């Protein structure tokens, strides 16, 4: 056996802070060979980023103590001088970062930044460097490198910037590449592009890659080996197969079971209880013990007192757990069995809230004194949506597709540019802010960012009781009691009534936000990416909470998210948005089983599934390019610029949202009807050509509420409209 290219032994990094010493990395050891990918997985604060930065020598040694050893080839990194490290950085080992927006210098052209990276390590003439940069840009898939080389970073999209970052990292052909959450800030379609690119380049350069991520899907997609970190320690290490199919550490098991999955539905996620520990006050025994569902299986409360060592299970697999092997495997099998399985239920209720032909445009203004409109951002174009009591309508799409705007407009937090909003059968479009006030009791919102959505200057009690105050409601037993009841209901300690939000973790804060939204028992709640800022284990807790609340109070959710897995877990029906339009809408089963729109299809294939075997066999459609600007929408079908099925027709004709299968509406000239199987009632390849006498309702009545539409047509089929007929009225 050859000596691995990268060897890390007993690496520790600690920071003295005002509050005590933070041991961010504690005794971590691993190896990576060239051409292989090691994924380091863990939630925020688990020490995975610090590990990589310590290897790169990017941890400021004045503020931190770095101990242990690490070899890249023959170079020992930890004891190396700054200058030795500097020479290795960018040449032998390089790094790409999470946020491509912030990681490139905004003042320099990308070509210059790349050339600088090349010339600092190699003796290159300016012209040669430029040539090399051009080649590299081509390799990372930047179209038109000659033109792009002199662009500034801000002129590029996020995906392009990440490509530039990769080009910069690889320009000197490094043997080790550390990718720190390289796709977290990107849309799923772009993530797929980037992951594919990394994969290609790894083959080309025979690079060892350390991939740091929290996304198990990504890991399943690209990793060869996996290291799981928790609270600064490596808790489990193994091959991809080891980790995904025979996880040993209850934490790993918990992670796998708490992830909502695109490929499976469960009624309920199995979250890991509690919060990650403070790195200053670590538990005395196993660091995971306080959250561990299996800790009780170990006798004598050993987990609370004894620090387990990382012990080998097989030649490739090691785990840090006190549980005996058999118990571990039993625990894992039981936990993971719960992941798959679940039922589809139908909701047939009148939608209390719906939007009709909703349009929201944001004018772009110019001029200091006399503002004039010079352009329009078409955030939402003629969208029809509805949601019934107790139902969840998922709204998915890439960032910038208008899903949040649609959700907010539905709540009248934004005034629609055109179209109508109904609530409880009442047209609330024209209502003034004042007239809306009583309705606000029933229409609520849960926000994405648990940090920004809670006023840091108000106590938890103040935040949750604000709706009572504003609405002038005095519940029986007083506001405080009502608030505390709600707090208890969402899993907060009612005694924390007078605490401030900064005293809570992200997950707890999100519970506060949820408590605020549901305390008045609203009928409709728009959830805007409510879990996207949360760690996986916490995410599952919140999803479960939301579902419980829905069951209990019959709330209708409009669940806005970019994560298709989460949407699948949460929603009864799902609407897919692209550039302000709904391209497909149906119940979740139909959508995930047989997406009809090419965009939906691509989107779903781009989502990596935390199942390596499945991942290996899955066919993937990688969309080209970026989302076009919502200022200048493409003509015809807005998706045609990126569509793998686009034809001439798509450039000119705007496809209508038509029902292709019962309750399954798609806006596409050439839907992927192959996947529809027996439900298909249309001609095999036309999409829209053959119709059976459509029962066309007046457009104003056509709403995207499948259930109600379906119920009016008992056959539950056969509805499509002739574009020639309805054009102009949609």
């Amino acid at each position, binding site marked *: 056996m050859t000596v691995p290219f990268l060897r890390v032994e007993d690496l520790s990094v600690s920071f003295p802070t*005002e509050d005590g010493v933070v041991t961010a990395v504690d005794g971590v050891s691993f190896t990576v060979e060239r051409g292989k990918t090691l994924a380091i997985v863990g939630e*925020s604060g688990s020490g995975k980023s610090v590990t990589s930065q310590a290897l790169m020598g990017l941890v400021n040694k004045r503020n931190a103590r770095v101990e242990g050893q690490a070899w890249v080839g023959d170079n020992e990194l930890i004891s190396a001088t700054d200058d030795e490290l500097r020479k290795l950085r960018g040449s032998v080992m390089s790094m790409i970062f999470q946020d491509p927006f912030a990681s490139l210098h905004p003042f320099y052209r990308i070509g210059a930044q790349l050339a600088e990276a090349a010339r600092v390590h190699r003796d290159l003439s300016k012209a040669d460097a430029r040539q090399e940069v051009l080649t590299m840009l081509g390799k990372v898939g930047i179209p038109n490198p000659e033109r792009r080389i002199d662009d500034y970073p801000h002129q590029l999209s996020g995906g392009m910037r990440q490509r530039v970052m990769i080009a910069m990292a690889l320009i000197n052909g490094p043997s080790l590449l550390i990718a720190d959450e390289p796709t977290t800030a990107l849309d799923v379609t772009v993530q797929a592009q980037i992951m594919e690119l990394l994969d290609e380049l790894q083959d080309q350069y025979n690079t060892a890659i350390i991939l740091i991520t929290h996304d198990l899907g990504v890991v399943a997609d690209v990793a060869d080996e996996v290291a799981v970190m928790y609270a600064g320690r490596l808790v489990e290490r193994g091959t991809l197969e080891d980790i995904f199919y025979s996880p040993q550490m209850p934490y790993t098991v918990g992670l796998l079971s708490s992830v909502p999955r695109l490929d499976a539905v469960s009624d309920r996620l199995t979250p890991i209880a509690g919060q990650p520990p403070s790195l200053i006050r670590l538990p005395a025994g196993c660091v995971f013990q306080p959250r561990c569902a299996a800790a009780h299986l170990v006798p004598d409360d050993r987990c609370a007192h004894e620090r387990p060592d990382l012990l080998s299970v097989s030649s490739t697999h090691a785990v840090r757990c006190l549980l005996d092997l058999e118990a571990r495997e039993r625990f894992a099998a039981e936990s993971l069995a719960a992941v798959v399985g679940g039922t589809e239920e139908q909701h047939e209720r009148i939608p209390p809230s719906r939007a009709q032909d909703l349009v929201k445009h944001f004018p772009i203004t110019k001029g200091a004194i006399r503002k004039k409109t010079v352009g329009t951002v078409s955030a939402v174009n003629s969208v029809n949506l509805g949601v019934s009591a107790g139902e969840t309508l998922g709204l998915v799409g890439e960032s910038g597709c208008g899903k949040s705007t649609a959700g907010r407009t539905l709540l009248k937090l934004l005034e629609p540019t055109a179209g109508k909003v109904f609530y409880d059968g009442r047209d609330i479009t024209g209502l003034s802010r004042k007239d809306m006030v009583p309705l606000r009791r029933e229409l609520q919102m849960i926000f994405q960012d648990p940090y920004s959505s809670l006023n840091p200057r108000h106590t938890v009690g103040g935040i949750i009781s604000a709706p009572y105050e504003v609405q002038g409601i005095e519940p029986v037993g007083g506001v405080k009691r009502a608030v505390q009841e709600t707090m208890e209901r969402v899993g907060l300690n009612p005694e924390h009534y007078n605490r401030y939000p900064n005293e809570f973790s992200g997950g707890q804060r999100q519970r506060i936000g949820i408590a605020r939204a549901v305390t008045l028992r609203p009928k409709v709640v728009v959830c805007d990416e409510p879990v996207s800022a949360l760690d996986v284990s916490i995410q599952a807790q919140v999803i479960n909470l939301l579902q419980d609340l829905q069951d209990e109070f019959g709330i209708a959710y409009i669940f806005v998210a970019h994560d298709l897995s989460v949407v699948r877990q949460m929603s009864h029906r799902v609407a897919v948005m692209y550039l302000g339009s709904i391209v497909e809408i149906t119940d979740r089963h139909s959508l995930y089983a047989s997406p009809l729109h090419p965009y939906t299809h691509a989107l779903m294939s781009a989502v990596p599934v935390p199942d390596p075997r499945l991942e290996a066999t899955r066919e993937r459609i990688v969309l080209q390019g970026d989302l076009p600007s919502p200022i200048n929408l493409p003509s015809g079908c807005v998706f045609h610029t990126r569509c793998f099925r686009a034809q001439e027709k798509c450039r000119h004709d705007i496809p209508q949202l038509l029902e292709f299968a019962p309750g399954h509406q798609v806006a596409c000239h050439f839907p992927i009807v192959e996947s529809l199987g027996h439900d298909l009632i249309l001609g095999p390849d036309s999409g829209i050509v053959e119709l059976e006498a459509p029962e066309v309702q007046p457009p104003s009545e056509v709403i995207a509420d499948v259930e109600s539409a379906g119920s009016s047509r008992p056959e539950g089929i056969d509805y499509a409209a002739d574009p020639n007929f309805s054009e102009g009225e949609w």
Partner: protein
Amino acid sequence: MSLDTADASAASPAAASTEDTFAGISLRRLAWRRLKRDKGAMIAMGVLILVFVTALLAPLIVSVLGLSPYDFDNSALDPALGSLPAGSWGGVSADHPLGVEPLTGRDLLARLLYGARVSMFIALTAVTLIAIIGTVVGIVAGYKSGWVDTIIGRSTDLLLAFPFILMLIALSPVLTQRLEALGLSPENARIIYLVIVFAFFGWPYLARLIRGQVLSLREREFVEAAVASGAPTRRILFKEILPNLWAPIIVYVTISLPTLIAAEAALSYLGVGVIEPTPSWGKMLADSVRYFAVVPTYLFIPGTALFVVVYAFNVFGDAVRDALDPRTGRNLR
């Protein structure tokens, strides 16, 4: 200017979550705790409290010591020396612990204490006005974009284009006479004048600062949450947004106070500040500079007092800023 960042916030939660691991306390208490840890700041605060208390109690202290800031004392002067203080160290004696003012024989300690009252009054009143006007205007401008913001923006531009000190000086005769016409005594008219112009030319800076803060605050989701719960604008402005502005306001105030104290001194030096018989530190300093060579203590007493207070304010202000800035100190990196 940029659309491309509009959705960027969609997926970068990692930065914020390091704070998760800390069970915290309220921001106010946290700031206070940090402040308490800063020895320099505590000393500065002690000095400032001492100055405030002595200024407040000046009449009492002065009468207990048997001094007077206004009474001339020819016996403490030497006519043969052109009315310089008799005796060494600027006329230090049992009657006059810090010596006397040349030409008049007025007691320096008493004038120093009374001067603190005037200097502090001007600075504190002006800064209060600045804080109120700047905050209200800034909040309104920031929250109500559109023409309100445009008008306020242009007005601040205009005000900021005025050469500040020049206007202060140039307006002094016009405005003091107007104030006197309202029945103020000339010495009070000058004090009020200083307060008014300091406030008038001072608020735009704060208003801009606040406006910027409000622009970003109003994008915060808790504001939307308030809207979503049907809160009226008034409530949003003053219950949701305002409490989040305390930090910048407090920081601005602590920065402004020493500036205003120094500005009062400078204007008095230029002859457009506080006038006789009212003592102020600036006035004392302005008078004393000519005696530097012959009665150095006369210069050093108000000069040191002014410096110490301004310095203490600056030290304290820095510490407050650090304490209120969530970015300093407690991150893991």
